[in-house]
């Protein structure tokens, strides 16, 4: 069962909009959401009232701002009421799961025009409180309780991976170097500076073996997509991007309950479903957005998505293969590492980068002739994974 048999209609992305990811001291949650969604609405040439339903990924308005009930709040300030507004929470995969909810609601025939967004305002609280909020993505009773942090959980994966597969510290650093290089071509990236392997290895330790430059930043940001049935997509755009699949799977919140801590089973499961539904193989993917909250996560993703065998992802970083001019361009917008990680918005931001690439609108970081893109969004240390496959419309 791949979950798609009951879906009747093909779905297309017909409008995109996003803010810069970074520290937006002058903008609140509703300002960010408005900026992103207005861009999407403008691009699709609609007024906004045509939007029938709204799904928004937001991990922790409550912890970051003391604000719950975010969906209706944002819908109100976007001028979308009385359309139903739903907040979707799946930690760092909130955006990806929101996209999937919107996709299902259009594919099923329930709605003909849906907005899916993501927004997170993270920099109004101190870093330690924000870290506490993020720690809620893992098992608070049996992981965070003992002083484990979110970087600490990924650090334990990295350590075991190095032990199992002989990954070197330098090879791990190559992920961050590549993503910062890509970020330097993205005007909306949180970090646009290029770094070296020595910069990564010389940066302060956060949780051994992970250092500051192995970790993505906490960003403010918002992103928004408009979804419509493919047969109506030309009403809104000359370049519809088809959602060929949007699959999701779950695993234990706790790292200790996994069979193999160097494999994200939820990613494998979601990827298997997505490739099956899209009727393509990994070889046919032209551009990838994967969830690189930490450098090790990008390597695990490439393996678990099926782009190489377990333990071999670092070999893809030789000769620039994962750079935008290479054989398998990964995170052309800088990923979470340099592009930024506004938690609830990240899954949407990833899809937007693919849309730009597939339309041929990615500017200096364009992957030539890209037709098929894959986005991979993870919640926590792998309890939720969403894999989305997009194709350029004919």
């Amino acid at each position, binding site marked *: 069962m791949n979950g798609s048999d009951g879906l009747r209609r093909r779905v297309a992305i017909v409008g995109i909009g996003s803010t810069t990811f970074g520290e937006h001291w002058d903008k609140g949650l509703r300002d960010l959401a408005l900026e992103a969604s207005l861009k999407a609405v403008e691009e699709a040439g609609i007024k906004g009232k045509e939007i029938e339903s709204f799904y928004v990924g937001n991990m922790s308005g409550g912890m970051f701002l003391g604000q719950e009930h975010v969906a209706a709040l944002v819908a109100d300030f976007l001028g979308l009421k009385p359309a139903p507004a739903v907040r979707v929470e799946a930690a760092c995969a909130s955006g990806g799961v929101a996209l999937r909810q919107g996709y299902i609601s259009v594919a099923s025939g329930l709605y003909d025009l849906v907005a899916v967004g993501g927004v997170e305002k993270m920099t109004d609280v101190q870093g330690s409180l924000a870290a*506490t909020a993020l720690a809620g993505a893992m098992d608070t*009773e049996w992981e965070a309780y*003992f*002083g*484990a942090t979110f970087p600490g959980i990924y650090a334990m994966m990295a*350590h075991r991976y190095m032990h199992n597969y002989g990954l070197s510290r330098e090879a791990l650093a190559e992920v961050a170097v590549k993503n910062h290089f890509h970020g330097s071509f993205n005007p909306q990236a949180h970090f646009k500076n290029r770094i070296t392997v020595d910069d990564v290895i010389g940066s302060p*330790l956060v949780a051994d*073996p992970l250092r500051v430059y192995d970790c993505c930043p906490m960003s403010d940001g918002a992103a928004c997509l408009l979804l419509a049935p493919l047969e109506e997509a030309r009403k809104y755009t000359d370049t519809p991007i088809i959602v060929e699949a949007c699959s999701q799977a779950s695993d234990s919140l706790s790292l200790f309950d996994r069979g193999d801590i160097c494999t994200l089973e939820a990613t494998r499961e979601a990827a298997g479903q997505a490739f099956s539904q899209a009727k393509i193989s990994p070889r046919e993917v032209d551009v990838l957005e994967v969830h690189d909250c930490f450098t090790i996560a990008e390597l695990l993703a490439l393996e678990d998505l099926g782009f190489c065998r377990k333990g071999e992802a670092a070999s893809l970083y030789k000769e620039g293969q994962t750079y935008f001019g290479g054989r398998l361009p990964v995170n052309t917008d800088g990923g979470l590492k340099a592009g930024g990680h506004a938690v609830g918005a990240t899954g949407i931001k990833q899809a937007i980068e693919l849309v730009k690439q597939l339309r041929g609108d990615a500017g200096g970081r364009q992957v030539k002739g890209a037709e098929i893109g894959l986005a991979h969004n993870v919640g926590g240390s792998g309890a939720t994974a969403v894999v989305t496959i997009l194709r350029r419309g004919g």
Partner: protein
Amino acid sequence: MAMLGVASHWRRYRELYTLKGSRCAKCGQAFFPVRRICPNCRREGRIEPLPFSGRGSIYTYTVIRTPPEGFEDYIPYVVALVQLEEGPLVTSQVVDCAPSDVFIGMPVETCFRKIRAQNREGIIIYGFKFRPRDSQVKQQ
């Protein structure tokens, strides 16, 4: 992590103080923390209590340098996944040795320790941590 009331700690004290888990008598898999439904056998499983020996070895670990709220006084400290003799992995701290002495495969055993205090007025939380298994021998 969030400051929670006394009951949230009290209701877990058997697991936190003495590492009591559970096991499915049908398939034999051991669980920590306690599971009341066997994910393998579902309704056909038979869950029974299982007190763990407390012995195991380090499966992987990290040294926390940037602490979460409430752990500022303890850095740097070691957080590990310990593989218990009975099979499950558990997350806790490794104490009674320098972070640089810890290695994957290191034999460890549980010890009862303070986990953290919730500021000056709040309750003090206790639970299991792990220490090198030969530490008793060394001290003698």
